[in-house]
């Protein structure tokens, strides 16, 4: 027999109109609130981080470092010697570049970066990690079969080129310096920056395109 419970209907009505966030969103709000109440977090800093990394920071800083390294041999030496200092020098210091190592691709070596534990990544110079970087599939397979994984990115590495996989940690993150593409003599640093892709600085791209 149908029944009508006015209180229940009112509750359902209010619930439908309350725009209650998802359980995950509520858990995050709760965490932020308790941390702020204990003086362990600051909502403005959290908002600022979201603003910066959800929208602004991309791989441009890394691209600028790479392009400069192609033009300035002294800078390249400093970059390879201490990448964190080189990032500082360019005004790009940040929490995830505090311990940064640059590794260079050569005719006989290709470098590719992973974090097998979680998703450590130099986001202050490369922006947020791409989604594939965080997958269990990438994190586990690129160590075991780097050439096969690179092949899935459309990158074929010839057998006379060694592939070195660098495993990032919270203490040490990596920046791959791709090789400067041929046909770029005389190009300005700004023009070169535009050739450098995020994936090339992770190592899942080897050849950079000039005519794009």
């Amino acid at each position, binding site marked *: 027999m149908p029944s009508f419970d006015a209180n229940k209907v009112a509750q359902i009505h209010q*619930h439908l109109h309350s725009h209650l966030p*998802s359980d995950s969103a509520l858990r995050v709000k709760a965490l932020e609130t308790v941390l702020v109440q204990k003086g362990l977090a600051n909502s403005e800093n959290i908002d600022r981080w979201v603003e910066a990394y959800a929208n602004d920071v991309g791989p441009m800083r890394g691209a600028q470092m790479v392009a400069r390294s192609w033009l300035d041999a002294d800078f390249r030496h400093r970059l390879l010697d201490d990448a964190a200092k080189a990032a500082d020098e360019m005004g790009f210091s940040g929490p995830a570049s505090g311990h940064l190592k640059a590794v260079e691709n050569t005719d006989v070596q290709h470098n590719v970066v992973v974090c097998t534990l979680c998703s450590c990544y130099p986001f202050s110079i490369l922006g947020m990690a791409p989604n594939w970087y965080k997958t269990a599939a990438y994190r586990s397979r690129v160590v075991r079969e780097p050439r096969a994984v690179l092949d899935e990115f459309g990158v074929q590495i010839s057998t006379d080129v060694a592939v070195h996989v660098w495993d990032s940690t919270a203490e040490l993150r990596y920046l791959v310096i791709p090789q400067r593409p041929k046909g770029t003599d005389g190009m300005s640093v700004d023009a070169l920056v535009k050739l450098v892709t995020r994936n090339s600085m992770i190592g899942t791209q080897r050849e950079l395109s000039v005519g794009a």
Partner: protein
Amino acid sequence: MSDLHTPTPFMKLDGQPTFEEAWQAEALAIAQNLINDQVITGSDWANALGAALQVVQRDQDNDTVAGYYEAVLLALEQVVQSNCEISAESINAQKMDWVDAYQSTPHGQPVLLKQTNK
């Protein structure tokens, strides 16, 4: 929901948004701010996230953006409980306060916790 499980080719995941929902960015922001403010170490975070990813991604169907951020949230709750003297009960109580605030706020008005509204 983006499907990250099929890894061939990985390139199909390029260009997809890093965050599917705002809380995902907020959770990472909280974790990073805790590291910046030296409330936790980078290693605390990496270890907690690594452990949570192992649990969540044990099921290959969870090798997704949603699965990744599910692990981020689990790891954040774990490091907060372990390092900040904040219990699971107090986090849950705070969550229920937010539920009450949302459900008792009339449409179109800002949602505020009762204690902050006084």
